[in-house]
Every structure is written in C-alpha cells, then in structure tokens.
C-alpha cells in the first residue's frame, strides 16, 4: 500500500524589537538570569500590558511580504494555563482575530504553500532545572519577547517540501528585517504537524505535532522518522492518536509528550487590558513603502538582467547578506556571471569549510573585487585566481597584484609567445594529433593541457585553444 504524507507547519518567529511586546524591558539575548525581567515580566500585582507598536509593524511587514490580508481589526486574547515560566498564568496571544490572514509562499517548481494566519503573541520564560540542590529556577528574560506565530495549511507532502518551505520562510523573515533568524538562540522555531493517509484518499489522517524543531537537519530527520513510524503503525493495524511529540536528536526518534485528551482547555477570551488592535490603510501603505525588493523579485532580476542560471540566482538570494554582497560587487563594474560563480563556488566553499555564515566572512572586499577584475582583464587565469584567493582568505592583508607578481601567475596572452609552444606540442605528440583528426575531441583537451603545462600555467587558455585549432587545421 502506498501512502500520502501531509504536513503543516507552525513557526514561532521572534521579532527583532528593542523591547518586549507588552513592556519596556529589553529583549537582549544572553543576559544574566532575570536581568530583563521587569515588573510586567514578573506579573506583579497591578501591572498592565502596553502594546509595542514596533512588533505590530513587523507583523504587518511580514503579512505584506507573503501577500496576506492585514486585519483592520484584530484582538488580543488570553490563553490560560499554569506553568512556572508563564508568570501571569496566561499568555497574551491572538486567537479568533489574528493580524495576518490568508497569505502564501511558493517553493520549488512554483508550488504554493498557503499561510492560514500569522498572529502576535508573547514568549514565555524558561525553567532552568537542577541549579541548586536539584531545585528548578525560573529565568524570565525571554518572557514577553514578541513572537509572530505563522501557521500554514497542510500543503506540504514530503520532508523535502517542508524543509524548502521552512528555509524559504527563514530567509524571508531575515530579508525583510523582522527576525534575526538565529535558530540556536530560538529566534526561529518550528512545530511540524505530520499525518499520513492512503494514496489518493480525500480524508486526512490523524496528525501528530512535532514540537520545537530548531534546525533544518532535525526537522528532516524528525519528519522522516515520524512518517515511517506512522505508516508502520497503520500497516500493523494500529490507530494514530492525536498528540504532541518531541524529537530527540540523539536517538533520531520522536516520542509522544501528551495526547489530546490530556491537553489543556486554554479558556481563551479577549484580554480586557488591551484594546482591539486597529490598523488603517495608511499604516499599511507606510509599511509597504519600507518593504523593499523581495527575494522572489530579486531572483527574477538576476536571471533576466544578469543572465545568471536559476541555481546561482537562487543561491545568491538565499539570504539578504549574500545578495547585498553580490550587488555591491556588481556595482564596482564586475561581470555578473563571473562574480556569481566566484561567490557560489569559491567563497561559499570556504565559508562551508569553516562553518561560517556570510555575515561572518572576513574576506577583504576590495581585494576580492580586484581578484575578479584580474580574471576579467585576463591578467590571470581562473586557476591562478584560486591560488590567490586561498592566500586572501587566510590573510585579508594579502594584495592581489603583488601576489600575482611574486608568484609569477601573470597570464601570457601574447600570441607570438604562445605559438611556439603550440607548435612544439604538436610536433612532440603526433599520436594525440592523429586521434584528434580521427574525431576524438578529448584529444584536443589533452593537447591544450600539454601547452598549459609547457607554459607553466601562465598561457591564456582561451588563446591556447584558438591557436591550437588553427595550427591543427594546418597539419
């Protein structure tokens, strides 16, 4: 029997505001415990929430970026449950009337993933276990940090699609500047709802929700494990019980945390301490004007205006920093295709080897520009450039022109210097010349290689091919 996989994702995106969503306390990360816990964070008697307008602006910005409807009227509600890291005994969230509705993102070959809603809410604090005599401490620094919870329809049908969506969303929220995207620090956390059903069946299977996935790797492993587990259960004649599960990265397994029956009745009701949130068309227009170009548009521009291939274009736009770096290089008059290739192949290889992000790149931009320029003006070959790039990566003080000199990498583009070498190679490699004549193209490349070797790599490869072609025709 074959099965269809159905996946929906809820993502908690921490909004990059200076202060908390309902108080003036700082949102800075990594502070000593409870340093950012003001009286509101501590839920002291008599304290009241006051909405941070920056958080609202960022929510609207996101809504616009996913072509969603921005609600003129939305309402904050209380989600009631007891937990030590939830100081008020309720979380202020949005329930029936969220601020963002009905958007979408596209993944892969133009598949639309519908975004049902995105709502504003406050984060909870953290329980820190075993700090003192096996006691549990509460750190409320994070309590009240603004979150945007983004909820999709169950539109994804494989782990790959789920990852593609999550990566696209992860890029977008950073691109438009509403989230720092730091998954280790919990700025971007996904809950993934997974169910399976017999292929082609209309009826959705019972879902289980995998909570708090904070890396794409974990997400992929967790979904694959969960899908297999569910199929196994169903094939063994068991039923899936709706429940919340946790993924253990050490074992690669998911395990049920609580079933629906044990779930809380959150007793949502509109928060009487906060007025309904009113958003005017003018507010929306103001924010739209700050949105800038979205990755979808940028990618098109790279392909249409700069003739980049789809793969390079999508890597260049996979995050805003890379795109901005690319733009800044192009603005220096560099060739877009060579530049894109150098970023995608050489720079990214170094970054990946060193497990760095583009933000952490230490490459000296001016010298990097010069390096590409020297390839463009044929002073050095691509291979020679790689040698210098290695030096430049290790030491930002390295100067490209000086290195070309000192390493003797300057390319020979003078025909009168190359021609004798070509003639010499033809004279000494008659067998290869015969092969070429009998139609073996590979032999041509081998002959080019011989000339390059003879020139100690300095001959301009383009010129070598041309001269070689001419000379072979004469033979």
């Amino acid at each position, binding site marked *: 029997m074959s099965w269809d996989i159905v996946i929906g994702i809820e993502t908690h995106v921490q909004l990059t505001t200076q202060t908390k969503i309902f108080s003036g306390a700082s949102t800075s990360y990594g502070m000593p415990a409870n340093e950012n816990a003001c009286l509101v964070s501590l839920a*002291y*008697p008599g304290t009241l929430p006051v909405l941070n307008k920056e958080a609202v602006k960022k929510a609207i910005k996101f809504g616009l970026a996913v072509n969603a409807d921005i609600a003129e009227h939305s309402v904050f509600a209380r989600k*009631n449950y007891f937990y*030590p890291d939830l*100081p008020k005994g309720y979380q202020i969230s949005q329930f029936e009337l969220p601020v963002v509705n009905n958007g979408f993102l596209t993944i892969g070959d133009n598949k639309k993933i519908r975004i049902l809603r995105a709502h504003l809410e406050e984060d909870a604090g953290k329980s820190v276990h075993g700090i003192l005599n096996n006691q549990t401490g509460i750190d409320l620094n994070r309590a009240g940090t603004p979150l945007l919870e983004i909820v999709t329809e169950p539109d994804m049908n494989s782990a790959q699609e789920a990852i593609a969506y999550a990566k696209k969303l992860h890029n977008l929220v950073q691109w438009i500047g509403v989230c720092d995207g730091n998954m280790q620090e919990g700025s971007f956390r996904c809950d993934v709802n997974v169910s399976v059903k017999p292929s082609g069946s209309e009826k959705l299977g019972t879902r289980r929700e995998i909570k708090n996935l904070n890396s794409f790797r974990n997400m992929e492993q967790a979904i694959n494990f969960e899908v297999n587990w569910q199929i196994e259960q169903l094939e063994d004649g068991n039923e899936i019980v709706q429940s919340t599960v946790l993924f253990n990265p050490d074992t690669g397994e998911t395990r049920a945390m609580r079933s629906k029956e044990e779930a809380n009745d959150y007793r949502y009701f509109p928060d*009487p301490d906060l*007025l309904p949130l009113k958003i005017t068309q003018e507010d929306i227009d103001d924010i739209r004007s700050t949105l800038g170009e979205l990755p979808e548009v940028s990618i098109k521009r790279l392909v249409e205006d700069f003739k980049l291939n789809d793969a390079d274009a999508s890597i260049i736009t996979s995050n805003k920093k890379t795109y901005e770096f690319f733009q800044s290089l192009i603005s220096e008059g560099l060739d877009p295709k060579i530049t894109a290739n150098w970023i995608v192949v050489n720079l990214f290889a170094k970054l990946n080897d060193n497990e760095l992000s583009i933000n952490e790149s230490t490459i000296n931009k001016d010298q990097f520009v010069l390096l590409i320029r020297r390839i463009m003006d044929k002073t050095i070959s691509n291979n020679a450039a790689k040698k210098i790039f290695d030096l430049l990566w290790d030491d930002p003080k390295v100067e490209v022109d000086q290195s070309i000199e000192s390493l003797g990498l300057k390319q020979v583009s003078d025909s009168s210097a190359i021609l004798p070498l070509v003639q010499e190679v033809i004279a000494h490699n008659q067998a290869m010349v015969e092969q070429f004549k009998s139609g073996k193209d590979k032999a041509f490349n081998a002959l080019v290689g011989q000339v390059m070797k003879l020139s100690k790599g300095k001959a301009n490869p383009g010129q070598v091919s041309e001269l070689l072609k001419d000379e072979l025709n004469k033979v």
Partner: protein
Amino acid sequence: MKNLSLKELNLGLSSKKFSSEELTKFFLNEIKISNPKINAFITVDEEKSLQQARDADKRISQNNINELTGIPIAQKDIFCAKGWKTTCGSKMLDNFYSPYDSKVIELFNQSGAVNLGKTNMDEFAMGSSNETSYYGEVRNPWNLDYVPGGSSGGSAAAVASGMAPASTATDTGGSIRQPSSLCGLTGLKPTYGLVSRFGMIAFASSLDQAGPIAKSAEDCALMLKVMAAHDTRDSTSIKQNIPDYQKSLDHPIKGKTIGLPKEFFNDDLNQEVKIVLEQVIDSYQKMGVNFKEISLANSHLSIPVYYVIAPAEASSNLSRYDGVKFGYRAKEFKDLEEMYLKTREQGFGEEVKRRILVGTYVLSAGYYDAYYLKAQKIRRLIAHDFKNAFKECDLILAPSCPSTAFKIGDKTEDPVSMYMQDMYTISTNLAGLPAISSPAGFINKMPVGFQLIGNYFDEATILNFTHQYQQITDWHQKTPGTDI
C-alpha cells in the same frame, strides 16, 4: 479637625493654623482610638505618614501648595504603594510589600497628600459587606453590629468614623457607591478609563474603576481632580481633558432633566427606600429640575451578566497568585502541582475561590458561547439602553442599594442575596458610566443614599447636581453619634 471638609483643611494648612504633621498626628490618634473597634485599616505606618507630612509642611512653607497638599488620605489596600504592605485583603498577599507606586498613589504623592494608611476591603474586592477580608470584617460606624458595605468597606468606615478626611476606593459592581450609601457618605465611581488602573490590583479588568469616598460632593470633586489623569501605562486609560470639577459645582441646574428608570421604580423597590427617593425628587423639583420616566429595559439582566463577566476575568487575573514569584506559598508540598493546589487552597478565601470556579467554568470549552459570549452581547444591550436614555435626560436617578446596612453575618451563608446588594449599581459598571451615591436620609437610624448616573465623562454634571442637593440638605453632614 475631625469634621472639617477638604477645603477647610486646605485653608487651615495654608493659613498655618495647623501643620500637616499636627493634622496627620491627629488622624493617626483617631485611628488608634477607633480602629480597634471598626477595623477599617489593615496597615498604618506612623513613621511613613509623618515623614510625608513633614515633607508637605516643607512644601507649604515654600507656598508650594495645592488642594490636597498636607492632607492625610486613607488609601484602599488595592493600590500598590512603594514600600507599603499591599494585601488586597488577602492572605495571598500578606507578605507583599509593593516595590512600586500605582498611578493613583503617584498622583497623590505628587500633590503632596499624606498616605494615612491602607484600608480594609473584601478580599480582592470581591464582596458587598467587607466580610470576606482576610483581616476580619469592618464594622459600620453607625452601628457596630452592621456591615459597612463592600468591597471598599474600610475606606467608607474610615471616613464615616472620622479616622480620615477622605479615602480612595474602587468600584467593579458597586464597591464605592454601596458602602458610601451604607455609611452616609458621598462616593463617586468615574467613567471607565478616567482614572488609571496601573498599579491597582485587578479584580475584573473591564469593570474596575477607582474613585473617591468622601463627606461631600465638593470633597469628591477635589479628590477626583487629583485622581483623573491619562496614563500611557494603562491601555484602557482615555486621553481626556480634565475639567475643573470644583468650578462647575455651582452651575445652575434649573430646567435640566433627570430620568427615572421605570425598571428601578417598580414594586420590587423597598418601600422605605422609595419614600427617601421621593423626597430627593421633591428637593430637585424645588430647584427647578424636571423629571422624566425613562426605560433601561435590560437592567434586570445586569446581575447575571456581571456574575459571568466579572468572575471570568477574575479567574484569569488571579492566576498569577501561584506561589512562584511573590506572595503566599504553601509550606509543604511534594511537587509543582501540589504547590499550586495547596498555595491557592490556603491563600484564597471562600468567596474568591467561588468566583474563580464560576469564571473558569464559563470560559471552558463548550460553555464559552452560552455564558461568556452571551453575557458580552447583553452587556452591549445594557450600554445601548443608557445611550438611548441620555437622549432624553441629563442624569439618571436611581436607588444606590436595595436597603440600608444589614447585620454582620446576615448574608454570608447566601451568596446570591449578597450579590443582590449591587442590583442598582452594576449596570453602570457594565456600561462604563460614571455614577455617584449621595446621602439622602436615614431608615431606622441607618444611612441611605441615592444614586445619580451620568453620561460618559460627565462627572462634572454629576458632582454639580449632587453639590446642589447638598446645599439644601444636611444629610451628608451627619456623623455617627449625632442626633438623627
């Protein structure tokens, strides 16, 4: 000094007839004498009060004096005051010393008033008799066997017994007006949003509103002038020009119209209360005021609607008292769950628990639509009734309470009869309207008041009408022990 008005106290201070320190000492001494039998105060801190008094005297000597500078005011123990124990009448907060000032306290401090002490109240403002306080019942100064009303029973009893010139209070369903009526005082519940709720411990957030209890409309005007202010720390605080309430006290009222809701003046109205109200109407008519019958068709639904909405909000507002961060924590427990259960079982009193249970129930899945949502819809209808009524009149006259004060213990076994105490006051909380209770006479030697309800932010007209009535009557000047 005992029975002087705020204006007279202000005059005495500014003319250096007495100092704030002398005045404060006088009232602290009154508290020493009377509080043991009345139990109006939970916390008195002589040193703190006298320090404020000396600071006020410094201000006065520099001629930096306004209406309340140097005057001791009793503060309901629902207002957080920095360094003061702030209990809200609950064991849950018996060890809670507030690290900050509520907006109301801040405003009194800025005006140079002296905090005379924190007054007793029903636990978390839930009650109509001041019998639910963890700190024991408050006694009515007119007859110590009777309740002073609630929840601001301590604030009312403190003023009625002469232990304080005026006090702050809060009103969620009648908690300013009912004790004012039962203790022969003037008490004003302002429009929802006029006085900041910042630092005022929440009972039912959409209904809670702070206001003054004092001896006269004029004193209430002076108190309100200090209390009313926009506050960015309370999202429901409304930006509003604060009029000079004192100035408009003497505006002419001749030719104005007071509405009489037929739903209040029916056969259910206590006959003795009815007679008192007829005399009030007569007084106003003599001043040239017209009366007109109006209808508040949904007012009979006020009590059931209130007892859905208020407990719903309270059940959530009181979730923060869990023993984790501040306040009471049970001594012994084996795990987190048991800590929660024991802390809340031991820390809350019966009435608070009853309301948390009711509130939790009406918000539960499957009941929300039938109770909470329906109540909200009726709440809107009730507000709409008032809106229509005010097209026909300037103010609405109503009873403050169904009766005069009842004996301590009389209604403690029957919560519903206790809830009926607020049958004439609750609809204005649901609508968010301002209303006052003013003394109107006595029934069997116990005071009784009448209520004037005004349109949104029309406190000035309410105070104006009440003041005019108090110009031709002297009920508000009677004090316990005087011949009545």
